């Protein structure tokens, strides 16, 4: 307890912490990570509460299903029996369009029809071990599981005189092919990207990490959507505290539907009222695998090609997969460039407004005459002009994202002509301001991962600078730094200033050191020590 108090005084943020919400970054005592808990956890944290069991009378089961979803024309029912003298009556339910008809008929219905297994007390055992060809089938006594399976594209098979049913994996819906993600293009390296199917994504990840250390836990969220999610990690390197925190937060979720990972993200993120993302996402399997290798946890959501990684640090916003596939000097240069671009994006408009509105005596004499000349006849005050141009740029950017591809190019030309040439000719804007906004926005486009914080802090710096000039700019910078230092991501500091004290911690931070120098894991992420045993001679 005493040690905590001393730490708070050292950081000097005690006032801020008093007024900040009580967002604990430590797991509760009762939920501290333990092997026992993991073994005993349920597969479905939010399972449907239906308690109906499967009846031994097959007709009851058929009637129940028909009553529940029988009016759906896509629900198919196939009643059949084995060819024994005392045949086993069977009924298979599946959804047209979601299930693969060939697999159903070849692997499940045909073997059953051709089988001469008689009715017995141990029907299920007989069917599972002697008759069915299909590889993935599980038995269940819960009607809810059977209904969920039908709705997911599996086939539910009921048997007469048996209070259990079989759920057979017969999903056969059309999926998008694996292709390079549009938002994370790389110059070198793999061109694979995650798709909407969970199992396919898991297989993509498994191919990268073929180790017994690879652990997966499945959960189901959404009362209406029953969306399956998986939590993947490497057992020997994972940040155990982060894992326990993740489970604790996932337990609290109760939604009607989860259609994308962002639904969950807003529940489990450390601090909601911040423009910085404390949960990362990626559409590249190689990136996800690399993050797992450093002790992070990957969360996949069925139906979404984006996977989420926790903990997420600020420096990850400036890392790309290209950094690790290119030469370390080039990679280091590009990383530093991205960091500089980020600060340019958020600070240049505010700095410029502060300079020309409050401190124009600091401008060189050649520049001041140029600015005066450019601003002649512009009716708007500097700050209004800046905000208007920023708004115009954001509208243009968003429109370019949403419009169909065929209109995109003419739109960009119109935008350039309107914003660039016509606005200056008509004296709605001045050329220096346009250049400043262009530099800021282009720099912001270089670091897409930080677009939330750029959007907010750019305006924040601008407003502060327009009120108090350079004082306001510096005050805004202080707020920015303090807020950054206060953030955590699943127990790990979002921006750890201590990394500047240690060369070891710098190896994959501001620069990307050569692979043969990175012998150890990042200690701020995981307790595991060495990732490789030897380097090379320099």
């Amino acid at each position: 307890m005493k040690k905590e108090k001393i730490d708070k005084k050292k950081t000097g943020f005690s006032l801020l912490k008093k007024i900040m919400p009580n967002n604990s970054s430590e797991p509760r005592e009762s939920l501290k990570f333990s092997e026992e808990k993991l073994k005993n956890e349920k597969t479905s944290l939010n399972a449907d509460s239906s308690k109906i069991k499967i009846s031994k009378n097959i007709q009851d089961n058929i009637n129940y299903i028909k009553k529940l979803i029988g009016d759906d024309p896509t629900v198919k029912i196939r009643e059949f029996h084995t060819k024994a003298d005392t045949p086993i009556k069977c009924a298979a339910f599946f959804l047209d369009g979601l299930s693969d008809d060939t697999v159903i008929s070849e692997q499940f219905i045909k073997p059953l029809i051709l089988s001469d297994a008689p009715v017995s007390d141990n029907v299920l055992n007989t069917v599972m071990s002697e008759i069915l060809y299909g590889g993935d089938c599980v038995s269940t006594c819960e009607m809810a599981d059977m209904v969920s399976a039908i709705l997911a594209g599996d086939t539910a098979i009921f048997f007469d005189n048996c209070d259990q049913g079989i759920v057979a994996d017969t999903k056969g819906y059309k999926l998008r092919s694996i292709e390079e993600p549009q938002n994370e293009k790389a110059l070198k390296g793999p061109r694979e990207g995650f798709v909407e199917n969970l199992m396919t994504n898991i297989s993509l990840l498994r191919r990268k990490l073929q180790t017994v250390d690879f652990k997966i836990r499945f959960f189901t969220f959404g009362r209406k959507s029953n969306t399956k999610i998986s939590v993947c990690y490497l057992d020997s390197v994972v940040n155990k505290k982060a894992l326990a925190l993740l489970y604790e937060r996932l337990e609290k979720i109760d939604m009607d539907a989860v259609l994308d990972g962002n639904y969950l993200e807003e529940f489990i993120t450390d601090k909601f009222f911040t423009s910085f993302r404390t949960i990362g996402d990626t559409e590249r399997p190689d990136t996800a695998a690399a993050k797992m290798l450093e002790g992070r946890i990957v969360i996949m959501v069925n139906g979404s090609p984006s996977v989420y990684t926790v903990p997420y640090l600020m420096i990850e916003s400036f890392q790309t997969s290209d950094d690790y596939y290119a030469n370390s000097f080039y990679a280091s240069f590009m990383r530093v460039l991205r960091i500089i671009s980020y600060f340019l994006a958020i600070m240049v408009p505010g700095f410029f407004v502060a300079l020309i509105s409050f401190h124009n005596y600091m401008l060189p004499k050649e520049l001041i005459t140029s600015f005066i000349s450019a601003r002649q006849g512009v009716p708007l005050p500097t700050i209004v002009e800046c905000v208007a141009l920023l708004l115009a740029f954001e509208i243009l950017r968003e429109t370019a994202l949403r419009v169909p591809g065929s209109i995109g190019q003419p739109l960009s030309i119109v935008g350039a002509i309107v914003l660039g040439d016509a606005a200056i000719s008509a004296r709605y804007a001045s050329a220096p301001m346009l250049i400043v906004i262009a530099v800021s926005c282009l720099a912001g486009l270089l670091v897409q991962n930080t677009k939330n914080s750029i959007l907010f802090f750019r305006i924040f710096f601008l407003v502060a600078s327009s009120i108090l000039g350079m004082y306001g700019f510096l005050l805004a910078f202080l707020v920015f730094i303090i807020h950054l230092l206060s953030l955590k991501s699943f127990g790990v500091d979002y921006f750890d200033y201590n990394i500047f004290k240690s060369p070891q911690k710098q190896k994959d931070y501001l620069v990307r050191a050569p692979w043969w120098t990175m012998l150890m894991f990042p200690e701020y992420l995981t307790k595991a020590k060495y990732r490789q045993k030897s380097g090379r001679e320099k």
Partner: protein
Amino acid sequence: MKKKICLVLILFLIILLLCGCFNYSDIEDTVVVSGLAVDMCDDGQYKVTAEIMSAGSDNEVAVETEQKSEYGFTVFEAIENLKNSSGKSFNFRHCQVIFISEQISNDGISDIIDFAFHYSGFRLSMVLTVISGNDAASVFECEKLLYDTVSYGVFDMMKQDQIANSKCPSAQIYMCLNSLENKGKEMIIPMISVEEQEGEGKEYRFTGMSIYIDDVQTGTLSVEQSQLFMIFMGKTMNGELTYNFDENYASFEIKDLSVSREVEENLSVFDLNIDMIISVRQLPEGVDVSDDEQRTKLEEELSARIKEEINDLFLYVRDTYGSDIFGLGNQIYHVNPSAWAEISDEWKELFKDVELNIDVSCKINDAGRSSKNIVPNRR
């Protein structure tokens, strides 16, 4: 969370109400003054003329200049009248030169220096310049010579001269103020004249420096004397020396200069040692500097000439003007502050009895025709 939002809003409101936009001004509402000229009118009023930069009227001309004059019984009053004459705010932060008429220079310039020091809109790095022979405002009618304004052209000319020729001394406001408050060194201010060229308009030219006792001009030095003064003070970074050897002119370039001064115990005799490394740029006819004997002879002759000229300069200033522009009083202060405290009040009289022992040593480093050193390993 609510507390945090309330706190932020309250802080924002406080900032906005108490000091929001405290110094906001759009840049186009600013008038940039590049130079000021101060004249004295017959009725005793100061006439302050400002050279104002304004945006060009067409795309080919980025900056246009105009002059605006106002009057006042003090410089401050004139400046305020100037500011009030326009709806825009005057920005003096880019004003680099203050031109003073010779009349004001003869009467005393402490008012101008004092005003410039106390006025918050001025930078202390502004340069003072005396216009000889004409009104100070006439300098703004000169050709701009590829500069945006005449003032910037004059400023750059003086700055470039200090680097290239080292003839023009620097007289920034803080230096002048130090000289006024300091009895050990008198003020010097560069001098410019405005000359009308036939068919070419007016041009400004550096014509030497003004010497002061306290704040009143007592005399002037020519350009050549200014150069010797800069050598005396050890402030020469570069420069050319041209001498006549048996009706043949030769030019030398100063590459390096080292000056040391010492005061003897009697505090009235000073020793000045000047070591110069020079390069020959135009040889005297018939002299071969690669020959040791001839070179040594040339070096000795140069040393003797420079010594004589510097000695003449010192005696001229001492005897004619009695102004310690060389800072010998400061030298005494640095060596013996208590002695200086006793004599500082009478230094103006005591200076007239000061003697100077000069020792000049010139070494020729290289000749113009070759980049190689004649004498190896010479610095």
